[in-house]
């Protein structure tokens, strides 16, 4: 089915709806591929984690070789639009975005968005981070470097963030101090361990982030 570009759809007027609109708070969950972002969102979300796709153009990705595009999808395990056999003609690929929701009350909703860590998806990150109050950067203690682009991104943009080391039972032991040094993390950035499969642990990560945002607010940062 073809939904080619419409004619200029013009301004969209933001209008008042009949019923009260709940306020919302948006938090990002970032980190390298396969670190547990989807798991964390799923663990705390009240809805089945939703996945939306963002079409990426070559221009958006900033590479000019379609064979690289195929490789991006393969490397990241991302959905590829269409058949890879016609990759030579392909000009877009897609990145899957995770999305979760937690209703806090009648008038307040918390939204969680998974955010790809790779630099080549930086324009998706700009879109996602718009309006976000803060971010959780999940790290795999065995692949610390994978999360560095996310940390750099939030540090550069002044987005409040914390780092949560996602560990499993079979994860080799590590010390948070060592992780902080290895990541060259600002001493003011909260760092904690978590298990993204555990609801309580994932909730604690979000609470710690919110407390961090509050303390920055109090300090006028």
């Amino acid at each position, binding site marked *: 089915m073809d*939904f080619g570009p419409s004619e200029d759809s013009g301004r969209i007027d933001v209008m008042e709806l009949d019923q009260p*609109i709940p*306020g919302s708070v948006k938090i990002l969950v970032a980190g390298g591929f396969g670190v547990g972002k989807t798991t964390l969102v799923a663990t705390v979300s009240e809805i089945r984690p939703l996945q*939306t*796709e963002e079409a990426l153009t070559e221009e958006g990705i900033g590479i000019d070789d379609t064979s690289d595009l195929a490789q991006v999808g393969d490397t990241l395990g991302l959905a590829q639009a269409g058949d890879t056999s016609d990759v030579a003609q392909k000009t877009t690929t897609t990145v899957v975005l995770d999305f979760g929701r*937690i209703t806090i*009350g009648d008038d307040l*909703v918390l*939204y969680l968005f998974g955010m790809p860590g790779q630099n080549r998806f930086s324009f998706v990150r700009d879109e996602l981070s718009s309006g976000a109050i803060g971010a959780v950067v999940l790290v795999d203690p065995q692949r610390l470097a994978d999360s560095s682009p996310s940390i750099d991104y939030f540090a550069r943009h002044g987005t409040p963030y914390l780092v949560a080391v996602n560990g499993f039972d079979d994860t080799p032991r590590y010390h948070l101090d060592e992780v902080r040094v290895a990541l060259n993390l600002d001493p003011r950035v909260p760092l904690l361990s978590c298990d993204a499969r555990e609801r309580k642990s994932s909730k604690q990560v979000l609470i710690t982030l919110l407390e961090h945002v509050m303390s920055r607010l109090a300090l006028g940062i």
Partner: protein
Amino acid sequence: MSNRAADLDLIALVEATAPYPPAGAGLAAEQTAIIRMCQSPLTVAELTAYLDLPLSTVRTLLGELVDRDLIVVCDSHLASPAPSQHVLKAVINGLRSL
């Protein structure tokens, strides 16, 4: 520029203006689906996931529906990078009681 279809926020809320799609309006099947799904407000992100379409496509479809006054879009008023202490505290308490 800020309110153009391409910039519709992922958590902006969409609501239909009529209880059912107008007959003979020449809408795409997906636009009819949007009107049905948005009888109560739904975020752009959720719509996109349920429709199983790329975000950019959904934004285009929404833009046309807005132009025809078949839906309204409401930016969530607290979706701001600088929420108040009060709101943050409410979210923390809400999470604790889950």
